[in-house]
């Protein structure tokens, strides 16, 4: 089925919650109101004409500093300075968070992409883990790395990082910690190395008696 037709079916079901269809660029996508996303996904899966039985990918997006005009990167990725200290900045992230759902139907052989946008201050989206079980881990990953809460998720906890990690690294305004469990993370200059290589003084070796060289071969 054509992407436009899929969107029309979805818009018929959702009414005003379907926010628009964008087919500019390489891949078309539909925008849906965040609070209706679980309902929309359930419809897309269960409707016989659509039958989207596979959630291919669930991507979290931080739209902070997105510049369509192609002026290069508007947000600098923070790293470590030459002295080995983490770079800091006072910039507070702005712009929305987004989630993109890429769907595929094995029986109808069509694809579709839905996107939602949520404000940065309240980054929460209803969970679709009840619709496709594979969303469970994808949503945990999105929470872990991007900090988007999925309401109604069976157990929303970190999946790739440590459970007591602070912050969400894929956010554009994430700042690296300088220490983790009291261990400096990286980039320490050699002079400040907290674990200096021990200096080993070689034992004075006795003179080898002449003619005792090992025979080669």
């Amino acid at each position, binding site marked *: 089925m054509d992407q436009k037709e899929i969107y029309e079916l979805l818009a018929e079901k959702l009414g005003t919650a379907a926010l628009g269809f964008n087919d500019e660029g390489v891949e078309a996508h539909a925008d849906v109101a965040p609070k209706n996303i679980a309902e929309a996904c359930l419809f897309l899966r269960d409707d016989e004409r659509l039958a989207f039985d596979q959630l291919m990918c669930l991507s979290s997006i931080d739209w902070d500093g997105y510049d369509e005009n192609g002026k290069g990167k508007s947000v600098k990725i923070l790293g470590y300075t030459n002295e080995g200290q983490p770079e800091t900045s006072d910039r507070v992230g702005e712009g929305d968070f987004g989630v993109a759902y890429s769907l595929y139907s094995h029986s109808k052989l069509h694809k579709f992409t839905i996107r939602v946008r949520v404000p940065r201050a309240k980054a929460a989206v209803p969970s679709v883990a009840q619709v496709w079980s*594979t969303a469970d881990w994808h949503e945990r990953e999105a929470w872990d790395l991007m900090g988007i809460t999925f309401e109604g998720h069976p157990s929303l906890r970190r999946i790739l990082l440590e459970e007591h990690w602070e912050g969400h690294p894929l956010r554009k305004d994430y700042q690296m910690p300088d220490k983790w469990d009291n261990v400096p993370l990286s980039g320490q200059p050699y002079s400040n190395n907290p674990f200096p290589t021990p200096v080993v003084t070689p034992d004075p070796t006795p003179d080898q008696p002449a003619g005792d060289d090992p025979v080669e071969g």
Partner: protein
Amino acid sequence: MAIENIKTNTGWADQDHVPGLKSELLELNMGPQHPATHGVLRLVLHTDGEIVYKVTPVMGYLHRCAEKIAEGVNYKQWVVYTDRFDYLSPMTCNHAYVTALEKVMQQEVPERAEHIRIVVSELSRMASHLIALATFGLDMGAWTPLLYCFREREVILDLLERISGGRMLYNYMVPGGVRYDIPKDNWASDVLDFITMIEKKKLKDYNELLSYNKIFIGRLANVAVIDPETAFDYGCTGPVLRGSGVKFDCRKDDPYSLYHKFDFDIPVGLGEMGTVGDCWDRYMVRVREIEQSCRIIRQALESLPEGPYSALELKKPVKAPAGAAYSRVESSKGELGHYIIADGGQTAFRNKVRSPSFCNLQVIEKAGVGLMVSDLVALIGSLDIVLGEIDR
């Protein structure tokens, strides 16, 4: 106590099964340093004697946040990071990334480059499947097939070294083509000799040694059956999905590159030794895929056109116009997808990787319940996961 009762009884741990005797579930850590978990994967098992009641995978030991790195380096510099995802078949990972990037860039690729890409991707897939057979046999207690499979993989590594310069991590494909042309010193005919040897002799060896071995079948038939509905629901792809009897392969059903030009079959699990979707079916799909890879390589090399091997200048960084696209390829483990959002610059604004092992492993939470601990090892081996890809 019957397994069904354990599965259905949610308040299991609080009950006294033998009057007067208190019993409880045993919490057992399997991994992260365990030979059967195929990497640094930790499984927290709740077991009742030998029977697994609950499986909770814990991963992230290999996490490097490559998606964050993608936002800091330019498009071409990130190809090396894709090598490190599935380090057993890096060529297919390269292929997935450059395909996605070319979709966003709307970049055409010369036909010769596409042929070379397909040949090296299929060689890499064969190497990955050989490791899958070898380590699966090892998990089941068969030592000899490991040596056989590694011997043939060594030949593939030598061939890929001659074309790319690397033995394990290649960094071979670039947006717009490949980095080097096919070497002039009979590389193509050596590949053809190799696949003829695999088709004529080696596959027969593996089947005699391992596939139709009575003990091996006894360990795998009817074990950890995954039905097609579960496979769809959990997003399983690749040999895991095909082992469940579903004829789906991105190379056929969602063609990319030039795969639509070549003639090959999609092997699926048939339930020859037991039920459709058991461990043996998932294993056998891989053996048969090696044969199909040989067919694709032969066709691709015999119809190799002349011409340039890269559409773009190698040393210049590339730019992608603003836009977003999801693109997927069939890697050796399943559907490997990239969701790339470009803002018009030289760096990806967001690059999300959908890795097949990540989704395939999740099914263990369902399929692993009620198995014996030794059968859980068979299940992990038949899923053929790579932790570099799960943790990224």
